[in-house]
């Protein structure tokens, strides 16, 4: 049941399930458990990851975490545990400094750091080529655009390192912020060059062009496909809005209608005639099923449980600092996200 590589779809499912509890609440038990799970999975799969240009993400997340904590302590003056105060006359930052605000800042920082860690763990294992292959031909352009956008930051980080090393070899030293000009200017120029190269490469491969003229054989079918696409996108947008305003029943209905309409549109739409060459067929293993199923169960339990019992993942530090509750169902469900760490190993055929 062990595997040396997981399917990209399994990684996406795991990433979505791992991010969900962090986005739904700030319960310290939950945050700590997700962080432990993510660190374990990351360490286990580190040797097999594509780590190019990813190393600076945790560092910058740590910096943002520190800034967030400081900002929260200085601007939020609520809470019952006061450890200091600044003169009230000072605008914005004047007032009591509380442990409540400090703790909330730390929790938010940990959540942010863990989200970044999940993002780079998933992105270092997914293969965009695989994803392009599994998506319906009509959505291929979205997948290609996503892959280009996803690769932007790591490529920029690599370019930054190369330019800095080249400038150092020329004797350039960094003493202040002005000394970054010889790095930033080539970085911008390089970014423009890369974007031009990518656009030319896409153009030369016929990206965005329809391979075959719009079918006139099945006008009704094409019209239904277009309608399905519109209904699907509207459904997803309405679902996102309903989630934002807390209309969860309507959100589930909207997402359901949206996904069904998109699925129907993808089946009804005539193929755009894009020929996809496959030199290696991706295989779906037992380990992929295990990881995807455990992620789906964890996601379902965490999301569903938070609907019935919102306080399961929530933690309030204002106005009184109380001990966070332990929700046994939520933390057991999150434990399922450790499955990717358990299936790594030599390839075995079943």
């Amino acid at each position, binding site marked *: 049941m062990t595997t040396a590589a997981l399917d990209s779809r399994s990684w996406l499912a795991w990433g979505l399930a791992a991010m969900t509890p962090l986005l739904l609440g700030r319960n310290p038990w939950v945050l700590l458990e997700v962080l432990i799970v993510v660190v374990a999975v990351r360490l286990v799969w580190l040797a097999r990851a594509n780590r190019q240009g990813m190393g600076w993400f945790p560092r910058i997340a740590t910096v943002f975490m520190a800034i967030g904590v400081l900002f929260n302590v200085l601007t939020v003056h609520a809470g019952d545990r006061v450890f200091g105060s600044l003169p009230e006359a000072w605008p914005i930052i004047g007032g009591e400094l509380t442990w409540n605000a400090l703790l909330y800042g730390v929790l938010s920082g940990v959540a942010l750091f863990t989200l970044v860690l999940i993002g780079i763990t998933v992105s270092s294992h997914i293969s965009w080529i695989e994803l392009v292959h599994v998506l319906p031909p009509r959505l291929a352009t979205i997948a290609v655009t996503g892959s280009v956008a996803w690769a932007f930051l790591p490529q920029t980080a690599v370019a930054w390192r190369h330019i800095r090393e080249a400038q150092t070899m020329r004797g350039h030293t960094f003493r202040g912020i002005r000394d970054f000009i010889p790095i930033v200017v080539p970085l911008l120029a390089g970014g423009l060059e890369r974007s031009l190269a990518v656009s030319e490469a896409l153009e030369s491969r016929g990206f965005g062009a329809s391979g075959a003229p719009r079918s006139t054989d099945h006008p009704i079918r094409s019209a239904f496909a277009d309608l399905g696409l519109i209904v699907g996108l509207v459904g997803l947008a309405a679902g996102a809005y309903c989630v934002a305003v807390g*209309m969860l029943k309507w959100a589930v209905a909207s997402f359901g209608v949206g996904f069904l309409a998109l699925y129907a549109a993808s089946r009804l739409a005539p193929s755009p005639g894009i020929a996809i060459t496959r030199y290696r067929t991706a295989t779906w293993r037992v380990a992929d099923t295990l990881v995807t199923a455990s992620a789906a169960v964890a996601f379902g339990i965490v999301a569903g449980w938070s609907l019935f019992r919102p306080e399961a993942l929530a933690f309030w530090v204002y106005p009184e600092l109380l001990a966070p509750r332990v929700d046994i169902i939520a933390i*057991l469900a999150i434990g399922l996200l450790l499955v990717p760490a358990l299936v790594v190993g030599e390839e075995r055929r079943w």
Partner: protein
Amino acid sequence: MNWRRRAAGFLLLACVILSAAALRFEQRDVAGQAAGEINVAGIAIDYGDDQVTYGIVPFAEDSLSGIELLERSGVALLTVEFGGLGTAVCVIEETGCDLGACRARLCQTGDPDSPFWQYLRRTGDGAWQTAPLGPSSSTVEDGDVDGWFWTGQAPDGEAVTLESIGERLDIDLDVLRSTPPQTLTPTLVTFGVSSNADGLLGRSEILVGVLVLGAVIAVGAMAVVRSRRMAPG
């Protein structure tokens, strides 16, 4: 370079002087208020779970805003500033919503019956009426009673007057007005037992949490050690 340093020095000095002056004016203002006559206002807080807090709040000023009265009542409070729109109340004691939900929707969800903190004023006959202005803009004077209700529907709180609150709290309002104490402290009493009482975090709950986290750490560590052993080289 010198003129820049001088300008920065002058700016810093000006900031310090302005801060000190603002602090001084504020202290004088408070001292002036304390020397005046004593006014008394009442407050009723309905938590929506069969618990109601009644309070008598003495104050030296001629009037307060509704939010100032709530702050001076001494209840644990979480509020959010909305600039010119005033202040919103998110949590009173332990009832309310998180800061994010409060900033986004004043604790309300998409459900039209979802609760939020409603601010009402007492009318002449003791009944409650929704305050046309928010708590930041409403003026509370001697004898007024403010009400805070955690509900998503029209509040149906018991009609009260300042005198009836005084009787419940066993406070003689005339005596309080005529012989004000040195420090103006509010008096609050909560009636009823919360139907949502969840209890404090028990030791068994913490133990379960620690055990589950310990198990997750143990399994994760074993997986990491196993993967290191299997790693090539």
